[in-house]
């Protein structure tokens, strides 16, 4: 909403948002006596509230005291939430008003989308949306909403969490693997996308041998592009650990790792993975035990020195 500098008053009036009128100066609110916060004269940790903040919240306290639930209070809660979207008490009261007045919840979804867009890392805006979707029983806008938010911040925890809740609650897994493919294609290091991949598999196909084989191929392909990418290695470990052969029992994976070593393509993540493979074999296999110690030494002294305390400790435990 831009304000034009030139042009006449007419254009300025059209383009500019109306100036905020304090509630205490509004005719239609004359019947309400505002209530200031209980500790208006705080001696300690006193927030220096603006005039507008005090005004809006003084009126909110007043309507809360008499439990007024009306359209005008709905608008008041909107002002209050724009000033502090983390006020969970106001969100709760707003939901009570929506229920009481039987407001069209689709209208509320629009408001919710706006708040999410403005405050994407806030807990309350996302919980509110979940509550509205639950009341409506309609998830049809949710995949698009979360996808749009993820376009701004591909790792927004709240967005992923909301999406997981939607697909799980309403059984909407169909497009989810493709979403993961797309997001991993866009950023191979997007750990949230890799996590979602695991989540989708857990809730749909499970970890059957055929499915795991296909996913192993996919993951090894991704690892080949960037052998330092921990997300892919963690995913590989995760799916193998779901199979009965475990992390050490997959020939393709073992060969892949050996080839990287042979061609001198070393990364801390590769060596750490080999440590895990050999740890799994270590109980029965003396050679594996020696290999663990050798790898840990290499990691501690050369390849991954920040973690030397851990690698040295691990070597002692085998």
């Amino acid at each position, binding site marked *: 909403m831009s304000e034009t500098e030139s042009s006449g008053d007419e254009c300025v009036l059209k383009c500019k948002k109306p100036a905020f009128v304090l509630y205490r100066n509004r005719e239609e609110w004359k019947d309400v006596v505002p209530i200031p916060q209980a500790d208006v004269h705080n001696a300690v940790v006193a927030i220096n509230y603006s005039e507008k903040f005090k005004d809006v919240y003084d009126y909110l306290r007043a309507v809360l005291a008499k439990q007024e639930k009306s359209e005008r209070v709905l608008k008041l809660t909107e002002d209050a939430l724009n000033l502090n979207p983390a006020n969970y008490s106001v969100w709760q009261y707003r939901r009570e008003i929506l229920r009481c007045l039987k407001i069209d919840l689709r209208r509320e979804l629009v408001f919710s989308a706006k708040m999410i867009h403005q405050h994407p890392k806030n807990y309350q805006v996302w919980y509110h949306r979940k509550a509205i979707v639950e009341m409506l029983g309609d998830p049809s806008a949710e995949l698009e909403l979360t996808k749009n938010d993820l376009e701004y911040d591909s790792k927004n925890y709240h967005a992923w969490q909301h999406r997981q809740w939607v697909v799980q609650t309403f059984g909407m897994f169909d497009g989810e693997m493709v979403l993961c493919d797309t997001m991993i294609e866009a950023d*191979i290091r997007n750990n949230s996308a890799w996590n979602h991949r695991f989540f989708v598999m857990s809730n749909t196909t499970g970890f059957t041998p055929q499915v795991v084989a296909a996913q192993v191929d996919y993951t090894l392909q991704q690892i080949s592009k960037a052998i330092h990418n921990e997300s892919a290695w963690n995913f590989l470990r995760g799916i193998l650990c779901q199979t009965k052969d475990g992390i050490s029992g997959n020939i393709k994976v073992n060969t892949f790792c050996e080839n990287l070593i042979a061609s001198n393509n070393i990364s801390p993540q590769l060596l750490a993975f080999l440590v895990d493979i050999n740890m799994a074999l270590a109980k029965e296999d003396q050679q594996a035990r020696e290999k663990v110690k050798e790898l840990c030494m290499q990691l501690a002294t050369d390849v991954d020195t920040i973690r030397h305390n851990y690698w040295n400790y691990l070597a002692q435990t085998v």
Partner: protein
Amino acid sequence: MANGRDLKLIKDFRFDEENVSTVTSIEQINVEDNCEELLYQTGLASEIEPDLPVLNRKQHLEFLNSSLKYLPKGYEVLDSSQPWLCYWILHSLSLLENPPNAEVSSALVARLARCQTESGGFGGGPGQSAHLAPTYAAVNALCTLGTVEAMALIDREKLQKFLYSLKNADSSFSMHHGSEADIRGVYCALSIARLTNIYTEELFSGSAEWIVRCQTYEGGFAGVPGMEAHGGYAFCGLAALFLMGQEDLIDFPAFLRWAVSRQMKLEGGFQGRTNKLVDGCYSFWQGGAFPLINLILKTKEGMPMPLSLLFNQEALQEYLLICCQHPRGGIIDKPGKSQDLYHTCYGLSGISVAQFGFDPSHPTVIGPPENKLVPCHPLYNITSESAEKATTYFQSLPCPCPGRLI
């Protein structure tokens, strides 16, 4: 004085982009550019001035004491976190061994009292409904104040009923009535219950199993089952299990592997999730898991004794002291960010863990001895001294009769 890394060689630890440029790598390289410069310059400077880096106590105290009085308009968005503001300031001051005087202390108790609700829990501000997070913060703040006046403010019977009222059918805890349930809920409830001696087995039955569902394939804990492993939630999960004596329910090697991998090899600080950026606050959320990890290792049969915490305690202090001290006081997330009370609290807590987390009587201190803080209790994140005082006080009071009230 402990020996840190040779910071003149810090560029050896740069991220390897491998010719695959993505948003993740671009952002990581950007952060490393800033941190490398600061770390390298300190490496050079400490050849002449061996007593580097210095904890800027004076500036931090100025920032904290000023915040004790007055917070600017920007803090309006924390109007529902007023007990948190009190806790962040008080805990930071206690780590710097500079508690408020008796008058201010009393005023703070009164301030927190105005956030207390009929239900026994605390809200984010006067008149706001009770919520587990500000309740956790209020309890920690009151225990940090440590006076009988402060601790007696807590209505233990009502508080216990409040905790009961938030437990869900699946044994998770909601943050407040009609709200989200995630792993923070059970941690806050347990921390409150244990500190104030209102814990009952019945209250938390089933909760350990719910927490275990939050452990992911990466080894860390998510906020809810299915989601990504995350430092804040990982701390909540591990500490909560500890507080129930159920820490052996998790896949421990997987957790340890995930936790150590979160330390950034160049910056020295911790990231919250795989392939994300370093942030000073994870110094506590991630770093704080390690004293607990060592406690677990000590109880495991046949395991060797660790000779330190299993992360790089020196590098973490280097990150915080060199990259995260704001010139006007306060600690920051990473270079380029502004200071705030949350990052100050968790940054200082992280320094305390890195110094005292292995052996409180033989701290590992980067920089001059004046950099030494005081030990922190790794489960509650108040000072060990405050925790002892509080548990002594509350243990002398009987645990309220548990009653499951609807």
